[in-house]
């Protein structure tokens, strides 16, 4: 049960410019995390529960959380190239490379590092949802039959019901000879197996 990778169409929203030059010594990166409804609803991660989603800049330099509408921002960011990661249980997000340009502030330069797709604005969506558990296969006759015990029982049934059929189809001459031989050896009986209980 590999999770199906779903590439989502980029939802174009008219809002949210990505980078704005802030006051003071740095820039501000604004963005939005969008977790589509319907994705992962059957899972354990509650849909729409964004309070535990973390947005991480440069491998832990700054950690922030999402506002109720999914927006986040990093303030006082120096110009340069940065990496944004989203940590959300139940979803797989690609890290995003964001270039903050000192020359023309406000210019958006963002790309998913997993598939090198450029983003026209910083709207981050999961590439796929993550299913952490194996799904139990529903009960089927085949799975029982395939199990070692099933095979043993099956073999036994074959011996019990098909062997007599085979014996019947045998040539009567041969049959008699075989029976003759068997009588000479004696019928293996449980009693004969017991110590001292042999009849012959």
């Amino acid at each position, binding site marked *: 049960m590999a999770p199906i990778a779903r590439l989502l169409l980029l939802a174009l929203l008219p809002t949210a410019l990505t980078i704005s030059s802030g006051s003071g010594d740095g820039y501000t990166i604004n963005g939005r995390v969008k977790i589509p409804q319907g994705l992962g609803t059957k899972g354990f991660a509650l849909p729409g529960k964004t309070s535990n989603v973390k947005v991480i800049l440069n491998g832990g330099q700054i*950690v922030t*959380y999402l506002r*109720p509408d999914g927006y986040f921002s990093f303030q006082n960011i120096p110009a340069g190239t940065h990496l944004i990661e989203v940590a959300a*249980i139940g979803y*797989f997000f690609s*890290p995003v490379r964001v270039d903050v340009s000192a020359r023309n502030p406000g210019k958006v330069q963002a790309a998913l590092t997993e598939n090198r797709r450029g983003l026209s604005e910083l709207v981050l969506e999961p590439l796929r949802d993550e299913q*952490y558990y194996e799904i139990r296969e*529903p009960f089927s006759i085949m799975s029982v039959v395939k*199990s070692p015990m099933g095979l043993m029982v099956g073999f036994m049934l074959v011996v019990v019901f098909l062997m007599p059929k085979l014996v019947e189809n045998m040539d009567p001459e041969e049959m008699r000879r075989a029976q003759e031989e068997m009588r000479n050896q004696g019928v293996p009986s449980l009693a004969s197996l017991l110590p001292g209980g042999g009849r012959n």
Partner: protein
Amino acid sequence: MAIRSFFLFILFFSSSLSPVFSLYEDQVGLMDWHQQYIGKVKQAVFSSQRAGRKRVVVSTEENVIASLDLRHGEIFWRHLLGADDVIDGIDIGLGKYVITLSSGGSILRSWNLPDGQMVWESSLQGPKHSKSFLLVPTNLKFDKDNVLVVFSNGRLHAISCIDGEVLWKKDFEAESFEVQQVIQPPGSDLIYVVGFAASYQFEMYQINAKNGELLKHESASFSSGFSGEVSLVSTETVVALDSTGSILLTISFQDGKISSQQTPISNLVEESLGPAVIIPSSVSGIFAIKTDAVTVFIRVIGEGKLEVVEKTTHEIAVSDALSISEDQEAFALIQHASSEIHLTVKLAHDWDGNLLKESVKMDRQRGLVHKVFINNYIRTDRSYGFRVLIVMEDHSLLLLQQGEIVWSREDGLASIIDVTTSELPVERNGVSVAKVEHNLFEWLKGHMLKLKGTLMLASPEDMAAIQSMRLKSSEKSKMTRDHNGFRKLLIVLTRAGKLFALHTGDGRIVWSHLLRSLHKSEACQSPIGLNLYQWQVPHHHAMDENPSVLVVSRCGPSSDAPGVLSFVDTYTGKELSSLSLDHAVVQVIPLPYTDSTEQRLHLLINADKHAHLYPKTSEALSIFKREFLNIYWYSVEDQNGIIKGHALKCKCTGEVADEFCFDTRDLWSVVFPSESEKIVATVTRKLNEVVHTQAKVVADQDVMYKYISRNLLFVATVAPKGSGEIGSVTPEESWLVAYLIDTVTGRILHRVTHHGLQGPVHAVFSENWVVYHYFNLRAHRYEMSVIEIYDQSRADNKDVWKLVLGKHNLTSPISLFSRPEVITKSQSYFFTHSLKAIAVTSTAKGITSKQLLLGTIGDQVLALDKRFLDPRRTVNPTQAEKEEGIIPLTDSLPIIPQSYVTHALRVEGLRGIITVPAKLESTTLVFAHGVDLFFTQLAPSRTYDSLTEDFSYALLLITIVALVAAIFVTWRLSERKELQEKWR
């Protein structure tokens, strides 16, 4: 040999590409446990909501803000802020928002109280660094909007509580002004900012809370200067100490006029006390000063007159004031008495009358009370009841109510420094297995239920019964050693200096011990726990001895502070002995030798490079002397970029005749050029790692010999410019150099330079390979590389004729002084996530294939098969290589959600992953710690040597019964047939 080949066969059989660690949802909690903690509480605010569940919001030293259930101490919600995002203050605004000020007062956030959703976040800048204050005035309104008052970075802000907008701001740019208090008297529209300027000037600013206008600015100078903090005794009076700590200054600024009074402490207290400090508290009219021995409570009466109300030599903790009615304030006071603590709740204006006086029995292992937070509730008879939240020395959090501990949380476990394991006692006679299994009928019933479960015939009630049966199987939490080695004790040392023993079966605390040697004392002012070592692991001889661990600690933060050793019995948690050393401990080297009582020999290196041998017995010394010339070690000076190799020289030549002290000599040194390389990571193999075989059979019946040496050191250096944050350098001026160094000879066996790479580097070393994780600036992705090192000198041993004729060199001695002929193979792959920790699975005999355990930035632990990091991977492997199990090369490593060891859980604030082999070869125990703890069992190649948890014994039994029945039936039938045959 047959068993080995059988294992190999099984390994081959079970090596399929599907994720090996995978779990069904109903198996959660069977072999793993997860515990959530918050860390030492810094500040607590009680939610005053009348309706709904009672909660308390806390901020901690682990940068956690959490909302706890006041009734049971459970976590409603919790957020871990970034490592640099230290929380300065928390409060509750409008009864429904939790306001946090963090990062030195530059980030203000608001969280929804019921569910912990962040509501808004604003960034506060200012002209200079300063103390920060967060005030939430209840009655200060601004267009129907409540206002927050924040002083941070030398600027006063008024901020809307609803959306975090800054309403006005006012700078305090005066160069030397140091803010001490920000006061908002209730019922007025004024804000007072008081502080010191140039350390002898008292400054007071009166500000209009409506618009930030400066109304008044007064200052007065005190020639004696100030020291320490100030205590606010009323909304318009503060008390400070002069620079000598012997004169109290009572400064009042009523109506914007500064007036002051000086009172020498000696006037109040007869005997001389020495320099005192003010204990910050907010109780009106009363403050406390503390000297080395005594704590004095002083009341302010009228115009700066002071009066001593109580003097105590007990350890004491005071809470902040709690206003219980219009003009009454209460506060809590906790005093220690031998095994009890005395809690008193007093009214601020009436010291002698106690509202409440209770004694609570307190476990000595919790140490002193560090913090007290008070809250009140209305009893059914409309009188006031009080509950207090106390933070203890071991970082635990307790709620006291009506003379009892209602709940307690062991939050010391959120800050683990080091982990080791210990075996449990061997099962004694008399404890029979039958006790556990009840009786055969119960056992069979259980298995019938399980069978029903696997056949998907069980009803929901049955399913619930199965689940509870599995979870509470008493087998896994027994206090004795088990056959498979799954049950062990995890011994953890926390930052508070407390040692805990956790049971691997269910994670419960078996014992805990606050180390006496880590207690603050005259000789040792600020002890810090450093490391844990296995001191005594009895197995062959000395079976009657209990195992013990060695705790190495140090008095103070600098590395030349004297060390302290303590020895703790791991069965009982008793401190056997402790040693205060007269030398520092820079390095501890556990030697591979033990004495007759199975005590391991340890070599402690001090700051002057003398080596000290422990235990100090003559037997240990004689063992040590025998191996004197075989002991080598290395040291890393990462500031200077030097790695040095050392060996022992002779007895100490100093004035003290100590036969356990040895001089050392430097053998070699590797100096990295400081302008181009900076050491960021060094790793070696784990000391106790077991390697099953040196030979590796590759495709075409070829053999490669792994270069297995315990003395290999992996060192990674980066360009000094590239040691900062990601994106701070361009790919052209950044590089990473990886070295493999032999630590006995100092020979560099392998060196590789990667251009355009940057740290942080996380690396793990096992057998003959090293895997390291770093950032690739060109591709702007994380990467992982593997280096495998093979011994070429044995490569020609493949020839059978040579073996037959005895010309092989298999038995020739290996010496590190002869230049080894080695070849290395390496390969790199992309990896999606940042890492926090990396580890590798370890098993008892090293037969089972390995998995890498990656602690990702999302606080999850991912198991990745080592076969994905095999330098012999090619895009199109040949048929033979495929049979060997080589995976076709891809540019990035796969992340399979089912192979997350932590499944749907997070180990919040992950810091380390520890793997311990179980006795069962297929299984390894994994313990991940951070703010949370997580433990599980892992079988990297599936459990090929034991039946799985859900193996159905009932099905087996039924099959056997059916077969036996069938034998009888057929026998009867055949006999009857024979009889008929005879009659015929």
